[in-house]
């Protein structure tokens, strides 16, 4: 695969506050790459540096091997779909899409034809003469994509483009974006704080936190083999426990020694152990490797979310079996459901559900407050 963009040792600070801390990232031809992380993690700044709207304080950005640190946005073969679309309100749909071609003084007939083609691709041909301010969120989104794609950029940057859409529309647009990416063969760099969105759409996910890249990998890798507690917690739900690697394939945590599939650690090395809630089986108390008391049960539709107190640590378990609060149960965990991670700065910060509450979780979801533009 051909390398298109390379970020080398990029740092950036605003007013003394570090936003990006020595980032290295390679972006390849024809891939769907997602920058994923909570708000303030530096993902948008990374995107803006690639787009040319910000200058890195340190490090180099290269495009097909050439350093482009000082190349202004209008000279980069990269286009952006902005967070709130940034459609030009004084131009209609057609003129918005035609904007880059008019800038390049493309002949009229050619503009007409190209814009029509592009509007067909995003299924908006019937709205060509409409004012953009009257369009729905989904339609504006399509105009923004068409406008960014018409100049045939090598790379398309998308800054949380689905953030303002409602859930249903969002799912549809995810599929459609993926389809457009496949059809055009253009590299998409997609910024989001929504892990589900990242998992469903991406070829490569870059998990970021506090200006640093935490992990780069395919969705499956990231989910199954998180590199540290932050990644494990941010992607999906996980129980993260303090453990000790006794020897290869043998780990001890929660007062029990488990067989596992990981090796290559020092003997007696302290580690973080990740167990996904859906990988825990509920068994009768006597048969359990671990024993505990159910403290809460929440019905989630497909499954129940059960919080179990095991020696003071609260586990989350997703199960289709019904258990009752205060019931004593046993837990059983298969070796391949146990994932071992080296200790990191994030150890001990995540993975305990003792203060778990669904409502709180939703309240702290960043970026959700932008839904006022949803229409």
């Amino acid at each position: 695969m051909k390398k298109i963009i390379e970020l080398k040792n990029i740092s950036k600070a605003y007013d003394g506050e570090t936003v990006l801390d020595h980032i290295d990232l390679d972006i390849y031809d024809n891939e769907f790459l997602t920058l994923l992380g909570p708000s303030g993690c530096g993902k948008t700044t990374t995107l803006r540096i690639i787009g040319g709207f910000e200058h890195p304080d340190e490090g180099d950005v290269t495009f097909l091997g050439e350093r482009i640190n000082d190349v202004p946005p209008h000279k980069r073969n990269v286009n952006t779909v902005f967070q709130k679309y940034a459609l030009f309100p004084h131009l209609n749909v057609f003129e918005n899409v035609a904007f880059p071609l008019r800038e390049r003084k493309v002949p009229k007939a050619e503009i007409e034809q190209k814009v029509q083609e592009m509007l067909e691709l995003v299924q908006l041909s019937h709205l060509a003469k409409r004012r953009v301010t009257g369009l729905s969120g989904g339609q504006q989104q399509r105009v923004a994509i068409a406008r960014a794609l018409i100049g045939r950029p090598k790379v398309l940057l998308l800054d949380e483009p689905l953030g303002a859409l409602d859930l249903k529309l969002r799912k549809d647009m995810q599929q459609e974006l993926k389809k457009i990416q496949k059809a055009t063969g253009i590299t998409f760099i997609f910024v989001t704080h929504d892990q589900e969105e990242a998992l469903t759409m991406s070829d490569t996910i870059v998990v970021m936190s506090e200006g640093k890249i935490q992990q780069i990998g395919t969705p499956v890798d990231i989910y199954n083999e998180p590199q540290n507690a932050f990644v494990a917690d941010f992607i999906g739900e996980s129980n993260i426990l303090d453990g000790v690697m006794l020897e290869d394939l043998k780990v001890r945590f929660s007062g029990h020694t488990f067989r596992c599939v990981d090796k290559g650690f020092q003997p007696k090395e302290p580690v973080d152990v990740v167990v996904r809630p859906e990988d825990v089986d509920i068994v009768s108390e006597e048969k359990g490797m671990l024993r505990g008391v159910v403290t809460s049960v929440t019905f989630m539709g497909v499954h129940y979310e059960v919080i179990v107190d095991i020696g003071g640590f609260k586990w989350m378990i997703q199960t289709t079996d019904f258990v009752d609060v205060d019931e004593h149960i046993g837990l059983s965990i298969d070796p391949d459901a146990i994932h071992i991670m080296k200790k990191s700065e994030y150890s001990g910060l995540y993975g305990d559900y003792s203060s778990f509450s669904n409502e709180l979780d939703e309240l702290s979801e960043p970026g959700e407050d932008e839904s006022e533009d949803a229409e």
Partner: protein
Amino acid sequence: MTKKQTPFGGAVLAPYSLWALLFILVPLVFVAYYAFTDNAFAFTFDNVARFFTAKSVVDGVEQRTYLVIFWRSLKLAVISTVICLLLGYPLAYIMARASEKRQKLMMTLIMIPMWMNFLIRTYAWMTILQDTGILNSFLTTLGLGRVHIIGTEGAVVIGMVYDYLPYMVLPIYSIMAKMDVKLLEAARDLGCNSVSVLRRVIWPLSLPGVLSGITMVLIPSVSTFYISQKLGNGKFFLIGDAIEGQYVANNLHFAAAMAFILMVILLAAMAGMKKFTNHRVYGGDTL
């Protein structure tokens, strides 16, 4: 996170900065300079002192000429402002609650006299209030006898109220029109009757509008000179007349001294008012 980018450097701000410095700030320095110098531009307190100490005899009574004038200006301006507020506040309220179509119509009707030059508006009142004017001929036709209004303080107040009433109505109206109707409903819901809704919700929320209305009426009325010349009686009726008179007499240093004193007093008054509303509206000096 977004850095504001503009295509131009600081060059875009330079002309205005220079202009503001040369033609807004420096002229104010000149006011102070002239106020504290004599005709030979030597430093002196005489001009300022003259304002406070000059005496003259009016109707056999000796009085401090300029302090009396200043006091009269302040009194008439405050009276006019209060009348404007009393007349304008209900009108602003009625406008804000009217249908959208009617609001537009009333706005236009308020703007028409505002856009007519105030010289013409004042002049119109002069022709009405004159001893031989239309008011008196109307009164005599009714057999009510004549009234002598022109040349009195009352006439000046009428002129000020007439000229500046729109400046009171508009800011209050614009605040009230933006006021969320749900707030009033909430107050009702929480047990307020119409009077207490007005007192506890509408009035405090409209205070910023009231404040800017008051400044927009008080400042031109306290410093006017045309209204008093046409509707008042004498040359040195108000402080504005006094300043203008000294200007016409080419006595620039004393004119500057009076302008300087007026400016200082108004600045202090406005700072005080701002503090007061901040306190009333936000419960403290938040700004």
